[in-house]
């Protein structure tokens, strides 16, 4: 049976208990994390207070032979939005945590001096981290391995950004995988916690070993044959990029980069010096890649590769079509412990403010923020991490930075619920946009955004069969899109809680669906679950997050709108020319979305009926006490 360890860094108290009571109800990972955070953290606790919790978690499939079973989940209070944040990273940390005997680590309090946590074969120890405080992520990881005289421990750590409480700080696993969202690096920094280190030698048992392994092999064959796998194996998500692929340009002034995008395709990155394909733990897809650059301005760079968000953030959105530069920025963010999306949204805003003469050289420490200036971008990333000069403003995240600079700059700040936006093609893909906007962790496509829009083989028949939505493959229509998002919100919540990667799911083309996951889950736990049971838990998880946000921030319908620019300024060129998110259509979409969720249409808040149907009585009581529950007639 799995265990969870509660570590209070203020009192240095460590308590170990069984995790089954939580896992039974909410599966694991994100579900369990949400439930603990909801119950233990009060609305008046600020994200950087010692009272905030960080709940690192694995799922019931983590560490097993189920495909892509290496996902680590983190839930904490969101520094940027004030609500909840769940984040998810690959690499090899999560399975090692399972092998050390733990399902979850819950951190509270604040250490009096820098520490790191060492989990060694079931023992948990708080160790001094003064020798690595101030070091970047890569150096810290190396130094920890030297101190422990073991190259094979798994490490996650924060960099200078987290230490300096930068609001876009993230946590880096295995030097290149990020728990990125919601400033969770700053939460870890506020606890004076530099790193988590884990080493284990136990094994993970499943209830029905032979049935489970048979299921694994069957699905492995399915994954190997899938179109989605072939696509991702070739170049990960950057394989999508081609001359007609829509990318945000110059802080979303346009949604089409035209011919310039052909410079940052998978081939462009391969030419840089792709050394090998890389996979996270037990992943048949290997969407990642390792680069060793030998020639040119970025010679000497050795690092794991990137996904499409870095190409959007540092490439098209800053108008710099240079794969080497994008890789350098991505690596720098990994070293500093910065979240690519939030940093690039802040930079896009700053560059546009400079273009519109709202910011001048006087404000930016003498730097000229002209589009395309690579050295300025690199300099600013470092300034953000160390909160140096103008970087101190950008370190607050794009929303607060615009508040500091003032009125005119606000209309160029691209954020949703406090979180900077680095997303592709929101104006054209309506469900994609709705999923980003209604995401319970702030803005972000990894909550309810489907990836089916514009995909050729998602025909009306397949759309109907998988999601009950025949228009699932159409990009620009609003029809059926609310239903599609609701389906994916539940689905993603359960995938995150199982501890496996979203890339093996229906989300990417043609892979595993809810029935497959139900079979895996049943064979791992020995209890019979079908897809509907899991979907109900997924819906519960989403509703816990929604309630957390309502209680802690009061977010309501008015916050479920995209940034004004995406509603008012259409795409100027390319295949989606003229597309925008019209306000009246958006309002209709929201009405349908709230109805399908059984939430109140006027406020966007949860109803008495919705929470009773989901058996979330504890949530209902808390919302009612706060006056934020809508009682149905």
């Amino acid at each position: 049976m799995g265990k969870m360890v509660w570590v209070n860094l203020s009192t240095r108290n460590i308590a170990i208990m069984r995790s089954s009571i939580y896992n039974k109800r909410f599966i694991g990972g994100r579900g369990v994390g949400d439930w603990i955070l909801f119950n233990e953290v009060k609305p008046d606790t600020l994200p950087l207070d010692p009272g905030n919790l960080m709940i690192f978690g694995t799922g019931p499939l983590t560490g097993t032979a189920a495909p892509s079973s290496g996902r680590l989940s983190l839930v904490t209070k969101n520094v940027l939005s004030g609500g909840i944040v769940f984040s998810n990273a690959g690499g090899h940390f999560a399975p090692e945590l399972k092998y050390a005997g733990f399902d979850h680590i819950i951190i509270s309090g604040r250490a009096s001096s820098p520490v790191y946590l060492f989990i060694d074969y079931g023992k948990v120890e708080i160790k001094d981290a003064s020798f690595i405080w101030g070091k970047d992520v890569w150096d810290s990881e190396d130094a920890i391995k030297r101190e422990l005289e073991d190259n094979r421990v798994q490490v996650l750590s924060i960099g200078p950004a987290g230490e300096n409480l930068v609001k876009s700080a993230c946590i880096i696993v295995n030097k290149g995988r990020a728990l990125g969202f919601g400033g969770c690096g700053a939460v870890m920094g506020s606890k004076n916690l530099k790193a988590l280190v884990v080493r284990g030698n136990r094994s993970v048992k499943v209830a029905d070993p032979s049935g489970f392994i048979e299921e694994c092999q069957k699905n492995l064959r399915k994954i190997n044959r899938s179109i989605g796998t072939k696509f991702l194996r070739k170049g990960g998500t950057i394989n999508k990029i081609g001359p007609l692929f829509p990318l945000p340009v110059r802080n979303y002034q346009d949604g089409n980069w035209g011919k310039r995008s052909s410079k940052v395709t998978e081939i462009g990155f391969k030419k840089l010096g792709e050394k090998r394909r890389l996979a996270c733990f037990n992943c048949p897809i290997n969407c990642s890649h390792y680069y060793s650059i030998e020639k040119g301005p970025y010679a000497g760079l050795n690092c794991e590769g990137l996904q499409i968000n870095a190409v959007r953030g540092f490439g098209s959105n800053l108008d710099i079509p240079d794969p080497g530069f994008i890789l350098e920025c991505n690596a720098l963010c990994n070293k500093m412990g910065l979240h690519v999306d939030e940093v690039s949204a802040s930079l896009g805003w700053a560059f546009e403010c400079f273009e519109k003469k709202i910011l001048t050289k006087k404000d930016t420490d003498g730097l000229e923020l002209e589009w395309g200036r690579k050295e300025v971008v690199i300099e600013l990333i470092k300034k953000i991490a160390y909160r140096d000069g103008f970087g101190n403003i950008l370190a607050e995240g794009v929303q607060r930075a615009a508040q500091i600079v003032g009125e005119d700059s606000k209309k160029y700040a691209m954020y949703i619920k406090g979180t900077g936006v680095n997303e592709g093609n929101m104006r054209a893909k309506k469900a994609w946009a709705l999923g980003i906007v209604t995401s319970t962790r702030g803005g972000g496509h990894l909550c309810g955004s489907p990836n089916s829009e514009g995909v050729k083989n998602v025909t009306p028949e397949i759309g109907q069969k998988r999601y009950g939505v025949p228009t699932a493959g159409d990009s620009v229509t609003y029809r059926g899109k609310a239903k599609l998002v609701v389906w994916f919100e539940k689905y993603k919540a359960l995938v995150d809680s199982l501890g496996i990667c979203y890339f093996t799911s229906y989300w990417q083309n043609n892979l595993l669906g809810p029935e497959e996951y139900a079979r895996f889950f049943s064979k791992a736990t020995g209890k019979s679950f079908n897809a509907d049971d899991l979907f109900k838990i997924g819906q519960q998880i989403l509703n816990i997050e929604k309630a957390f946000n309502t209680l802690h921030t009061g977010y309501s319908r008015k916050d479920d709108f995209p940034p004004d620019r995406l509603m008012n300024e259409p795409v100027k060129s390319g295949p989606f020319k003229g597309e925008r998110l019209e306000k009246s259509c958006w309002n209709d979409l929201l009405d349908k979305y709230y109805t399908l969720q059984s939430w109140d249409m006027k406020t966007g808040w949860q109803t008495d009926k919705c929470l009773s149907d989901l058996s979330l009585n504890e949530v209902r009581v808390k919302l009612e006490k706060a006056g934020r529950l809508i009682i149905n007639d």
Partner: protein
Amino acid sequence: MTERNFRVGKFLKNHERKLLMSTSRCTGCRSCELACSYHHQKAFGPSDSSIRIFRNDKNGEIEYVLKETCDLCPDKNIPFCISVCTRRALRIQ
């Protein structure tokens, strides 16, 4: 698939048949470790596995260790680790 890319596991030199591994094909996913531990223990734990894969984050190289406990799965047509390797990075000499 060139022969020179395949390396003999560290501890298997005296075995009659050898499990070879291509460090250039391997992605470091460690599926083979899970398959092997399942073969030995009916559970999933790399420390029970005869094959171990380690990734060096500094240069992207993959290190490969084979323990003497490797029996090349006599109960199966091909060793289980080979059948789960999607990159075909393992083979018997």
